[in-house]
């Protein structure tokens, strides 16, 4: 299939972004990730006006939606390149852009370190051995699946990289730790949770359906609010 691919490119952090359009004979069963690898393996690829394309910079790792590296805006929606098949774009254009909520480093690569910084800032860890209950096991499993890809932050109306609201990429991992903290150790994290998550969340739940891992984000928010804000601790851990 003939595919028209538009890529928002940027040489480095400070240079101006520009759009480049490439016409390419692609396979409908290939993913956007495979396409990018193929484009980069072409020896002398040129765009639709004959200009050289060169290496298109992007991040990937697992190629099976287990690592979150390849999150980008695909036709305006934040998705994983490895989980998006080209057949979807058979009648139109494929537009690839870097996530907008994070500083662009180069082409489709963005600097997502703020997610790591935020989890550090709220103190997302245990100080004592985990309190594990049968009731919380499913929640802990589901929360532990977070890819830290950033798709949820991209669609969040309240999150900005330099803001004080940390979004689902923080409250999903926090929901696990909150459920496993001993009651007497619940000081820093609940306090930071109230400040950096609860008070900034507009409850739009735009994060609910965007998660590439299919995590039930709303449930994590409800549980964490219960523990950190409403003090309705899990019965079994009392």
């Amino acid at each position, binding site marked *: 299939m003939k595919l028209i691919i538009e890529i928002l490119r940027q040489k480095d952090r400070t240079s101006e972004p520009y759009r480049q359009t490439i016409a390419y004979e692609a396979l409908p069963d290939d993913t956007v990730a495979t396409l990018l690898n193929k484009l980069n393996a072409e020896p002398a690829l040129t765009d639709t006006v004959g200009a050289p394309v060169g290496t298109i910079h992007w991040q990937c*790792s697992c190629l*099976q939606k287990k*690592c979150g590296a390849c999150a980008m805006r695909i036709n305006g929606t934040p998705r994983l390149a*490895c989980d998006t098949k080209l057949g979807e774009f058979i009648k139109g254009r494929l537009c690839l852009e870097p996530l907008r909520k994070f500083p662009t480093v180069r082409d489709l690569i963005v600097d997502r370190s703020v997610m790591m910084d935020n989890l550090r800032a709220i103190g997302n*860890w245990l100080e004592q051995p985990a309190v594990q209950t049968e009731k919380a096991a499913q929640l802990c499993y589901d929360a532990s699946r977070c890819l830290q890809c950033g798709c949820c932050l991209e669609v969040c109306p309240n999150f900005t990289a330099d803001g004080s609201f940390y979004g689902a990429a923080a409250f999903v991992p926090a929901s696990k730790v909150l459920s496993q903290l001993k009651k007497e150790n619940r000081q820093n994290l609940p306090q930071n949770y109230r400040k950096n998550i609860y008070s900034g969340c507009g409850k739009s739940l735009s994060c609910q359906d965007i998660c590439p891992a299919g995590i039930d984000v709303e449930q994590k928010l409800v549980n964490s609010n219960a523990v950190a804000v409403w003090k309705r601790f899990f019965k079994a851990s009392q």
Partner: protein
Amino acid sequence: MSISIIGAGLAGLSAALTLAEQGVACNLISAQASERAQSVMAEGGINACLDTMGENDSIENHFDDTMRGGVFLADPNAVWGLCRNAPAIVKRFYDLGVPFPVNEKGIVQRSFGGQKKKRTAFVKSSTGKMLMTSLIDEVRKYEARGLVTRLPHHRVQALHIQNDICSGVTVTDSFTDKSVPLPGSVILACGGMNGLFEGMTTGTTQNTAELAALCLENGVELANLEFIQYHPTTVGISGKRLLISEAARGEGGRLFVERNGKPWYFMEEKYPELKNLMPRDVVSAEMVSVVNMPDCGGQVYLDMTGIGMDVWNTRLSDLREQIMHYLDIDPVKKPVPVSPGIHYFMGGIWVDEAHRTSVKHLYAAGECACQYHGANRLGGNSLLGAVYGGKTAAQTALNEGKEAGDAPALKTPEPYFEATPRFRASVSQILTRYLPILRNETELKQALHELDLLEKTAQNPADVRLLRLAQAVAGCALFRKESRGSHRRTDYPETDSACQKQTVVKHNEIFYRDIPELKNHEADN
């Protein structure tokens, strides 16, 4: 004293935590965040003799299964340490919040390949991801305290090695292209050599093999490069091989091939004791054998239709979702066509029992190191080997770092190069073609010949390094004139006791090295 850890997967995190818990600072360097490491992809579980399933399991049993699975090519003292420390490691992960299912005796365990007892602790089919999430949280605590300094988008530019002594590493920030010199000891935890078989492995594209190549160039010894694990149950998807976890067979999945129009459960007939759960090298070789039989269909299927819905729902729900998503097959209702694919590299950077490489103050752990798995790795031992190896390497680096004193300043290295995509693709094509499950001298010589011809197309120093590593892999496979574990030679089909040695590569020289004798470990119990 300064210690830098290259790689932030399970082995690297384990090393960082070991140092931080003793109040020792380290740099934790990775090309991408820990969430992108291959460790998150590990599915089936982690082995430890917890004896919670009423089968009288013992550390000796775990040791015996691991040694036998590796066809007696692993360092027995290292394996003993691995098995002895395994129960404490798994219990620690429970305390770190990994939601292992539990019964009245403790953590529930499942059957896994090559093991006679249920010894594999698991969380559904996402064990690696669960261990990683908990370990990332724990290491984060020490990042906040200033003991672990993350350099999360950095690549190795140069290893500083002279006269077999390592004085540090220079890394490049891939976001800014700035060089960062890091004098001191170095622990490599950089994963397996997927980059030699691009698109043909179940693992991450980020394990490029470039560090193994850099080690070879710097005279660091590599070992057992011919031992490449083909996992029996993989399926080709866009750009890679998709793993169908061994947990599928651990929970009752069966392999069959059509024979005279009927399903033939060949593993059950040929191996009545362990059946579908023979070690991976045996299963993969049998699969190649049956698909080539004239009265058999050319495709092996994994039949999971006999697995009960309770098991699917509680233990394999993620595996079912994955198969339905990628293959459009519901494994509850229909068998899945599978074939062997490259999954793990038993060989890598040579290390001793304490995870020292052949170069002083340079250590290696995890899949990049040649340790624990001999000629064939058992499922569930890689997560364990990564955690225990990282811990051991860090402890050795710590002990030996005290004597090393302050490292000298590092010289500014040459600019950083990556292997070019086209050159890497050519190397991969040659190795994939000539290093399948069954090998022979003619084809291995042809591989070396084609690799020689490729040299003139190299574009940069990284291409040449990668080529040298590829030549070493093919060279090791040619050098070992026997069949053992994952290395099967049609021209030397028998296992030869004279070859019960490690294949060691230093620069372009290949030689055998004796495996250490098992010490008396009675005092350990």
